[in-house]
């Protein structure tokens, strides 16, 4: 066919969409700013809903990335973006030019910087960590302890950190943190059966066939306790345990609790890469800073510019499963576009 495609971003979405297009006979260049591919997946331990090892998906993607027709460019960023008659010319930071009949933007998301929610004490107190930190610790296999090496007697998971919060500018729901919080609570219970685990939530959004089942399992088999109330603040005790304050909204009274570890379930944000690439390509953003799609039902992979497509969580928060599906539909849209043009 002789047509070429540039995919910006070598995470789940970028590799999946590129792999399919390479199988269809296109020449695909994948640009990745990091030294290796796979995006944030390499930081995750087990994936909901079936608790499979994230490495299985990593292996799948690394095979996909070797599809004949794909060329991977690690440590590469886009320095300039230009329109030509047949499509686009992109120049890299290494001075290499890539011409493309179509471009896929797959720049992904960033984890919310929890230190912006200062009242929760992340990077101020020793034993406040994020769900992303916990995932890395679970993956490393080292015993889960407080910073001082003590086995935590009580752990609190805090939902909606950096999501549904006008004060940090993110009014949307990040969609994956509810189920992540319950998944991690179960995993911690399996590791530390004597530890009390509390999940503080505003609403538990356990959509779909499997997520509600995970919630039910957490109640039935893992003794996870759910408290409906948003945390107002965390403070540190002299022994470096933490005092958390919330309202126990169902009893209607303020609540205080001493815990040894606080896990903040951080949401998703559009990354600096998405912002930079979006601006360079001159495509529109939505009100949340993600890339704008023209029609939520019928054009989920298109952008405001012809020939530029979007795949994965640079358009909205997505799970691994959603991302793979979105990337596949992006490949289809690109294929259709290249046949028609």
């Amino acid at each position, binding site marked *: 066919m002789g047509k070429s495609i540039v995919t910006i971003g070598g995470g789940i979405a970028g590799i999946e969409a590129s792999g399919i297009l390479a199988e269809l006979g296109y020449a695909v260049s994948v640009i990745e700013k990091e030294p290796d591919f796979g995006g944030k997946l390499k930081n995750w331990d087990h994936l909901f809903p079936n608790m499979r090892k994230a490495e299985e998906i990593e292996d799948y993607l690394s095979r996909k990335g070797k599809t004949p027709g794909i060329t991977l460019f690690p440590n590469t960023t886009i320095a300039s973006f230009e329109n030509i008659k047949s499509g686009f010319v992109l120049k890299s930071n290494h001075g290499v030019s890539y011409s493309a009949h179509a471009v896929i933007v797959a720049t992904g998301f960033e984890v919310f910087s929890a230190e912006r929610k200062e009242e929760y004490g992340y990077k101020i107190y020793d034993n406040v960590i994020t769900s992303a930190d916990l995932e890395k610790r679970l993956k490393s296999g080292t015993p889960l302890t407080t910073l001082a090496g003590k086995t935590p007697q009580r752990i609190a998971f805090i939902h909606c950190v950096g999501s549904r919060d*006008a004060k940090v500018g993110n009014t949307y729901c990040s969609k994956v943190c509810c189920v992540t919080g319950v998944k991690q609570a179960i995993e911690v219970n399996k590791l530390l059966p004597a530890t009390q685990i509390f999940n503080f939530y505003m609403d538990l959004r356990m959509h779909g066939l499997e997520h509600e089942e995970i919630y039910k399992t957490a109640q039935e088999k893992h003794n996870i306790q759910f408290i409906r*109330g948003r945390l107002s603040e965390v403070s540190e005790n002299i022994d470096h345990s933490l005092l958390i304050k919330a309202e126990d909204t169902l009893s*209607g009274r303020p609540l205080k609790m001493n815990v040894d570890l606080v896990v903040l379930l951080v949401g998703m944000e559009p990354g600096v890469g998405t912002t930079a690439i979006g601006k360079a390509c001159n495509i529109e953003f939505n009100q949340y800073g993600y890339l704008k799609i023209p029609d939520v039902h019928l054009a989920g992979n298109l952008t405001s510019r012809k020939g530029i497509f979007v795949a994965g969580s640079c358009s909205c928060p997505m799970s691994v499963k959603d991302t793979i599906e979105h990337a596949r539909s992006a490949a289809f849209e690109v294929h259709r576009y290249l046949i028609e043009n």
Partner: protein
Amino acid sequence: MGKFGFSVMETRTVNFGELDNRLLGYVLENEASFLTCISCGGCTATCSAGNLIDFNVRKINLFLRRCDIESLAREIDKCMLCGKCTLVCPRDINIRNVVMLIKKGIVKFRNE
């Protein structure tokens, strides 16, 4: 007929058809951000008064929406207007203004 000590109890059902929602309308008209309350309880958790006495600032929303003016009038005077609730509110509601409007509204509609 002797007195048996029985009486007919008033129903506890919230009857939306019969609620007097003038105060609710007045507050929402003047502080539209209050429409977006999700009852998360962040306000109550941080409330200076509520940590010491029987006062729940989150329930103001509930009393107002259920048009329970009697409870509202009793509760609203416990607020010290410190504004900490406004600082933590994830929906960025101006809760202090809501309290002021309720105080004004109670007087206004009592006299009407």
